[in-house]
């Protein structure tokens, strides 16, 4: 009997559905904010995040490997942190970076749970949050990025996922650790 192609176990529509559901749930439950999902983009290598602002990254590894990320402007990051902590955050701070990392953790964690039914169990890294200007997010491997833009509080942010079957696992040699994205100045 022919084994199914691992890459066909999860379609782009599955990924988008999981991203939209997880993001909606996190924003409505933890932030009490409404959002609108925009037209989905796919990028062959470079994530479509804005080149300045805040990017939070989380690695996934197991039968499938990949990276999930949230990218937004500094002003939206501060607004989200204010809602999350029920306080006022006017400028970038440790508190805001922590909030963005935790929001990403909840979204990517729930996407991971949704796709684990088909992809098999995966581990999740702790978030890495980057704040700066003129950067790009690249995947160290060749998986496409599925990019779902959302509008919230009249600002746009992006949930992005680059994931695919773990080639090492398919060959019976699972490499421990997480895929590490490269951050390049442009």
């Amino acid at each position, binding site marked *: 009997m022919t084994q199914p192609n691992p890459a066909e176990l999860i379609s782009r529509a599955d990924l988008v559905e999981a991203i939209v559901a997880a993001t909606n749930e996190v924003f409505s*439950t*933890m932030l009490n904010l409404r959002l609108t999902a925009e037209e989905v983009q796919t990028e062959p290598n470079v994530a479509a995040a804005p080149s300045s602002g805040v990017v939070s990254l989380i690695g996934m590894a197991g039968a499938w490997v990949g990276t999930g990320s949230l990218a937004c402007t500094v002003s939206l990051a501060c607004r989200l942190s204010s809602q999350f902590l029920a306080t006022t955050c006017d400028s970038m701070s440790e508190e805001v970076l*922590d909030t963005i990392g935790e929001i990403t953790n*909840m979204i*990517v964690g729930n996407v991971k749970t949704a796709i684990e039914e088909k992809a098999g169990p995966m581990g999740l890294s702790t978030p890495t949050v980057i704040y700066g200007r003129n950067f790009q997010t690249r995947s160290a491997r060749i998986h496409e990025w599925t990019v779902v833009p959302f509008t919230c509080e009249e600002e746009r942010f992006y949930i992005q996922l680059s994931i695919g079957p773990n080639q090492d696992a398919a060959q019976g040699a699972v490499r421990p650790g997480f895929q590490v994205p490269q951050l390049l100045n442009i």
Partner: protein
Amino acid sequence: MLDILIVDDSAGIRKILQRVIRQAEVPIGNMFEAGDGSQALDMLKTQSVGLILSDINMPNMSGLELLSRIKADEALKHIPVVMVSTEGSQAKVLEAVQLGAAGYVRKPFNAEQIKEKLAAFF
């Protein structure tokens, strides 16, 4: 009065949990915080608590490793540990329950879910 230890690598989540717990109509004593399982174990050497709320994915020592060590320690194993995590798969919940978790709340959570879970310990 019940003293509670909150273990999460996100300071924001620790703050939110503290706020929700204070709003719950239950007799709370002191609340303590730790940023990972290792810090929590250090704290438990000197601090007696009646309930622990712990994340799973944390640096240095995960929540499941913390749970496992607490349940293997004669002096600590009576303390109920409720996991609060983004890990939502049945396999992960089952693993936590088998290790001795007293409850499981999936992130994102709302205040009512936490209050409901707390009520079981009073």
